[in-house]
């Protein structure tokens, strides 16, 4: 039950792009760069789509719902992938947690 509650809570999370990040989508891929130029990241097509949904102020569960419809995947698996990506992008300073 505790696990379900945590997941339910996480799935309502909103994220924002860190103010230190500049980015553009070029040829279907997002390129992100810290504004000091120190770190660059290149996202594949799916991660780029997730980033766009984040920037459109979608919560994690809204992102999962969108991806499930677009990619016909299992929601649980997509949720895990999205959570993993969010965790990774937060740890790299690309995303920060936004308001609920």
């Amino acid at each position, binding site marked *: 039950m505790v696990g379900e509650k945590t997941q339910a809570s996480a799935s309502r999370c909103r994220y924002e792009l860190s103010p230190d990040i500049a980015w553009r989508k*070029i040829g279907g891929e997002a*390129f992100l760069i810290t504004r*000091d130029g120190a770190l660059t990241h290149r996202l594949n097509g799916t991660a780029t789509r997730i980033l766009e949904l984040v920037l459109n102020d979608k919560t994690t569960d809204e992102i999962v719902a969108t991806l499930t419809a677009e990619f016909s995947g299992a929601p649980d698996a997509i949720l895990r992938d999205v959570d993993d990506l969010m965790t990774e992008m937060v740890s790299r300073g690309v995303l920060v947690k936004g308001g609920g």
Partner: protein
Amino acid sequence: MPMTPLQAISQKARALNVPISAHIDTTYRCNFICEHCILPSQFGGTELSTVEVVKVLEDLAALGTLFLTLSGGEVFLRKDLDDILAAADRLRFCTKLYTHGNFIDEARVAMLLARHVSEVQISFYSIDPCVHEKITRVPGSHAKSLHAIDLLVAAGVRVVLACPVTRYNFGSTKELTDFAKSRKIPIKISPQIQPTYSGELHTLSVATPSCELPNVYLEPWNESTLYALAKAPAAKFDDSANCGAARSTVYINPIGDVQGCALMGGLSAGNVRQRPLADIWRSSDVLKQIREIARKDREDCKRCENAKYCSFCMANSWQVTKTLLSPTASMCEQSNAKRLAVEEHKRRLPIFAAMADDPVGRQRGENGEGDGTEPEPDL
């Protein structure tokens, strides 16, 4: 070796004709009177308004521009600079400013931090105030630039020093490089003096004398480049582009004229007041013509013994010859000086020659590591 994300951006931008790098001169006004200045001596027209500049930024972001350079003139003479930087911040550019730094105070440093400016490049010609001010022709300008450097560094803003080498300051780059190293600031030094944007050649009269150029290239700031040049393969004259002009870079002047490169003055592709920037970028015949030019088209260069040392510049060719493919005397002098410098460096330091001739070799030197200098990213 896998591509770095920066190399991947560059490659994609060129392949897809995305202007990944844009340079906007927001004004040509400046209170310095540097003889080597590339701004035209006569310039008319009304500068783009704040609203117009912000529209240009929005159009650039939509076109895919990530790297934005705001310059001048002196960019801090724009009273609306904070509004422009706020827009650049909102649009998620990686923004750098070129300035002489004399108008930078604590409040402006705070503004740069708040707007997430990536880098401030300060023109700084010597650690000797007399030499610096002989070039700027503004008394007290050296102390003000130095103060700006200190304020920015203390605040954690990335600073880069830019030093064109002229007949006034050649021979003093070692002290300047040492100064930059002591402050852990990258420095860009270049003895290549260009004609003005409008093709006036009077700036060349302050260029380093030809006979001194090899010595300038032998100075410590250039060591890693000498190594890279020594190791570089013979120049290829193939289908690849000479540079990113009109392919991955775009320039917009203070009145809204669009060019493939800042130095291609008079080769306007259109004006943002008359046509949308995206339309100019995609359908201008001038830009299309520049894009079609490849290295293989440089017939005059193919048999040159200095070809691999040459930083051929279509814009320099345009300014001097009004064609895009003719090497100029200045370009040829520079490439010859670089070859002589590499040969002299090999003679002086046999270990350099051995490393340079090693087919595996070290990577050091090809990315400017370890000497406080920083090459321009290949965009």
